[in-house]
């Protein structure tokens, strides 16, 4: 079974702060991590490989430092890594990102592609389905459980829905997106980290990819960011003491009634 896992390096958003004066993000000192949902995807791919044999390739499109997340995935147990890195890829929106990744993946052999549900920097959840479309393969999004049939030809997955989940079956190749509950990602051990550095690692530029540069990066992105601004600050809310619960609750209910909140 050949599995491809697209992964993204993201800032640890819980440590991102606003510079109140300039209205910009303070990114200095904020650690970069492997997107948590992609960690689930990598873990799932490795488990499938362990059960059914095969090969796991991790791929990212991103700046030179994004290499770190590929190394982490290799240390967890992925076999090969591909790093699409070139100034010509930059400024890509989800469409251009998915297109670029699919241009590389379409030249590979694969049975399964597993993405994260969403990347926590933008939370869009779009790149997975868009890759599936560009490759003309079906998708099953937000999966919590993956089963491969005995003959290795079909996948059955539990897909989270707004009401619960549904059991969905499809013939391979398929693209899945991983959501919470799928597994507990392993931590890379020292052996893994040592081995990672020796595993096949390919760097791909626009020229190597061979795709029309007008379809990549900013040039290939239909959406553009016009402005970035800080969210509206809530006015300081009321905080009262609850030592006398009855009195506190009276105040609360009066407040809510006055505001028409229920």
């Amino acid at each position: 079974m050949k599995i491809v896992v697209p992964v993204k390096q993201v800032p640890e958003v819980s440590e991102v702060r606003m510079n109140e004066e300039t209205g910009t993000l303070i990114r200095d000192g904020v650690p970069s991590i492997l997107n948590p949902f992609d960690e689930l995807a990598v873990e799932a791919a490795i488990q499938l490989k362990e059960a059914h044999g095969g090969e796991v390739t991790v791929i990212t499109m991103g700046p030179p430092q994004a290499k770190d997340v590929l190394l982490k995935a290799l240390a967890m147990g992925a076999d090969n890594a591909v790093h699409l890195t070139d100034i010509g890829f930059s400024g890509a929106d989800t469409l251009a990102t998915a297109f670029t990744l699919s241009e590389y993946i379409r030249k590979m052999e694969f049975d399964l592609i597993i993405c994260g549900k969403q990347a926590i920097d933008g939370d869009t959840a779009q790149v997975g389905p868009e890759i599936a479309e560009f490759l003309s393969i079906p998708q099953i999004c937000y999966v919590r459980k993956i089963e491969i049939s005995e003959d290795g030809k079909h996948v059955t997955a539990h897909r989270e829905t707004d009401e619960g989940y549904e059991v969905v079956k499809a013939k391979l190749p398929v693209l899945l997106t991983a959501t919470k509950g799928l597994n507990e990602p392993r931590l890379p051990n020292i052996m893994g980290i040592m081995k990672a550095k020796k595993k096949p690692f390919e760097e791909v530029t626009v020229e190597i990819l061979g795709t029309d540069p007008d379809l990549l990066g900013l040039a290939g992105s239909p959406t553009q960011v016009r402005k970035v601004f800080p969210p509206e600050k809530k006015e300081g809310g009321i905080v009262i003491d609850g030592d006398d619960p009855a009195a506190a609750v009276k105040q609360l209910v009066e407040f809510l009634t006055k505001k028409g909140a229920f």
Partner: protein
Amino acid sequence: MTLKFDIDACTGCMLCIKVCNFDAIEKDGDKVKFDLHKCVLCGSCEEVCKDDAIKIERKPIDKSKLADYKDVWVFCETVGDRLRSVALELVTKGRELAIDLGEEVVAVIIGQDIEKHAQTLIQHGADKVLVVDGKIFADYTTDAYTIAMTSLIAPRKPSVVLFGATGNGRDLAPRVAARMGLGLTADCTGLSIDDERQLIQTRPAFGGNIMAEIYTATTRPQMATVRPNVFKPGEPDTSRTGDVEKVDIEVSPLQVRTRVLEKVSEMVDGMISVEEADIVVCSGRGIKDPANLALPKELASLLDAAVGGSRPIVDLGWLPPAQQVGQSGRTVCPKLYFALGISGQIQHISGMSSSDFIVAINKDPEAPIFSVSDFGIVGDIFTVLPELISEIKKVLDAR
């Protein structure tokens, strides 16, 4: 954009004729031929062609052609026998945008036996309702719904298409966007029209730390998914009238590559979805024991509210995953949000901070949840909550 047909590769299987919704392909000897005047480059034929004989080259749309696109479309999702509330919210918002553009609002419903929703959509602001009804659309599948949406969009050329940012909306919209080579803005919390008639799409990024305004300068339609509950549905106007058009779209089972074997509901005790409820009562680790959830559940049932949980509560299996609020759960935007025994870490806050009113009860005065709450009580949920329940009962009884 063009369609390239490699007649030598064609083996004459005729599958493409069956899937074309635009009558653009016909039998020509033992092969096929295309009528490119009828073809809208929807890609259905390309997708079923086993021989790779059909290739559609997609290029961005010419800017001068933007004027050909008009009307604000809303994909109106149904679940079981009802419309999702976000459908009415978006039709109401769509009306505002359409007025600014001097265009119309078109609601699209896809499913089986769904025409009955058309009048509700008209009363909330739709000028026209497109109904795609058929057995193949009874369950949501990415493939059937993508074919339906692209088959509608391609020839009719809307300027804006909005989807609710629900599970299925976020599964469908990117698929449609990629098939048509369009931009798509995810999870918007604000929409407006600027002086140049561009749709300005506002959305949070970086866990809600910043807001971004996004626009789609040169391609049409402009597409966005919009968070449920951000916009409020208007009151229905029973005197409004509008057109209802049934559109036949043929989808062969061969084109639907996923099969739904089983649907499992995890909604317990009439529990409503946290994304759709006007009021959410959310509990955190402070609740201590699953048996104690009886208290928030009682409050929720008084207020017709959804019962939510922070991640640890869901991880412990005390509530189903669909009820988790926060970054790895659901993003909610109710009128009223109760945070009970929740500390308020960024991953939780990013999923609920845009609620209209936030009430927090926590015994730790330093808990970060108080920095986003409108009304906070520093106290023990086990003494405050019973009082709150009886006080609310009193108020409701008096109404």
